[in-house]
């Protein structure tokens, strides 16, 4: 018995979310009185693999091979499934990011394992195996019982703390054993944004809605985000109007995020918007309408015009940061 956690890498590096995932897996392993094993796929330096060992895993497996630079769902699924069987895993954990969401359901079929996605807490119980997960777009939570012997969990990003636990892990570097001719995904072009804080990784998000009035008014909002080390986001009307890119849209049909702090500026907070941000730990709302639903979700609010309030906020943050 063991717990297997798949840790994705980005150009050979892990991120804070990888370590959160490993911390979570180690805690699940403790609940099951077993040990956790991390699996990395693609080229990652040994030093980087060792980093995973700070968060409680007993074993780290690095699979490398030529065709692994491109995410091919079939190949990756087979590697994870074969490792899970070899390690006798009864729980397999992935991130609830794009990659995790692509692989977890395929793994579910391959391992005949029930799946709980977007889980934000440790299992509620082990026997039966019950998970606490988001449902009805954040308007409710479901207690989901997984009936199979192997269970798959995708962990919501930014939902578990880092816990340092040194367990002197063994590191195994193994070559790819799955037939790579299975890979059918061919990448023709890659566009990457560099230097920007990713919305789904960000601990602070500053978001603008229709109350920003025009695409030309975003300057102070971006300045506030920069000062706070935050990512920028927007509501659906703003991305539909083309004021900001679609990749910034947070809400039911956009990105679902759970930062520590979400600052909603000129956003009324329709149900569909709240569905994407309601898991934020703190919500601050700035809106001219004191009856806007966003104030029901917020812990702190300012009733006022975004354009008038923003400069003062920027000034105050600058002052605090320069202390």
């Amino acid at each position, binding site marked *: 018995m063991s717990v297997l956690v798949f840790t994705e890498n980005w150009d050979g590096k892990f991120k804070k979310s990888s370590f959160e995932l490993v911390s979570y897996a180690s805690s699940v392993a403790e609940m099951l009185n077993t040990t956790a094993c991390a699996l990395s796929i693609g080229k990652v330096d040994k030093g980087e693999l060792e980093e995973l060992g700070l968060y409680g895993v007993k074993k780290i497996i690095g699979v490398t091979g030529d065709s692994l630079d491109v995410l091919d*769902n079939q190949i990756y699924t087979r590697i994870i499934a074969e490792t899970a069987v070899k390690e006798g895993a009864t729980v397999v954990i992935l991130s609830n990011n794009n990659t995790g969401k692509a692989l977890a*359901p395929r793994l579910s079929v391959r391992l005949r394992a029930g799946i709980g996605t977007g889980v934000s807490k440790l299992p509620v119980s082990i026997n039966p195996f019950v998970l606490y997960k988001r449902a009805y777009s954040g308007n409710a*939570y479901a207690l989901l019982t997984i009936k199979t012997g192997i269970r798959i969990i995708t962990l919501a990003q930014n939902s578990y703390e880092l816990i340092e636990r040194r367990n002197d892990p063994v590191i195994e570097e193994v070559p790819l054993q799955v037939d790579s001719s299975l890979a059918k995904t061919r990448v023709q072009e890659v566009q990457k944004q560099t230097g920007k804080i990713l919305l789904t990784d960000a601990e602070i998000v500053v978001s603008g809605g229709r109350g920003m009035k025009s695409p030309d008014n975003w300057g102070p909002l971006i300045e506030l985000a920069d000062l706070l080390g935050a990512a920028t986001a927007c509501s659906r009307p703003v991305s539909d109007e083309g004021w900001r890119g679609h990749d910034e849209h947070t809400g039911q049909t956009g990105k679902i995020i759970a930062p520590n702090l979400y600052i909603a500026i000129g956003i009324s907070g329709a149900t569909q918007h709240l569905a994407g941000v309601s898991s934020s730990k*703190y919500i601050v709302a700035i809106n001219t309408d004191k009856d806007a639903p966003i104030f*029901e979700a917020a812990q702190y609010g300012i009733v006022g015009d975004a354009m008038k309030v923003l400069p003062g906020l920027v000034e105050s943050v600058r002052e605090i940061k320069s202390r």
Partner: protein
Amino acid sequence: MKILVCMSQVPDTTTRVKFVDDNKKLDTNGIQWVINPWDELSLTRALELKDDAATEVKSVTIAHVGHAGTEPTIRKALAIGADDAVRVNAEPADAFFVASQLAEVVRNDKFDILLCLIESSDHNGSTVGGMLAELLELPSISAVSGLNIRDGQVLINREIDGGRETVTLPTPFVAVVQKGIAKEPRIAAMRGIMMARTKPIKVLEPIAAETYTEIAGYEMPKPRTACRFIDPASPKQLIELLQQEAKVI
């Protein structure tokens, strides 16, 4: 080329959900059922591709797992422009059960592109598409925000962390689509609504399939503490609260 759009119906997205039966079941009283918002977008994109003669997309079929009561929602999809529909006559018990039924639909007919949603707005599972692909041993692409066909080749935009890839795949394949696939959902016109009445909905009885999960109960989110209002003239107070009280900056 034939496109299959896997569709689910969900409570209208502004519904304030309530539960019955010891919080194990959704209270369906007064609920307005709609096409899952992402499915509407994938249907729209499928129809745009069909309208473009250069793509050689010949038909768009809807697949749905649900009882007869869901037919009005299927008719809506037909009114928007789908050619026909297949309904598997069963309660969608869990994701694996639904994927197993959809796999059977695909085995009975041939499709080149299978479009599935990134998640339904009710169970927020995002699992059926990937399961379907693995059951059929087909390639799959997730987080698809664009789908084009040029000279018989399918080009797919896939969202990755911090960027986007353009990838190709041989057909048939499963695309799990999300935001960006189409701009505005297409709306049914009067002519479409009239035509939808006579479009075929094939009803299949379910195959035996397992369920891997079950709902033990639902909980409502904890109510948040009341909002603390700060004088717009003193933004500094807000920043100090965030730093000293909430400790988030």
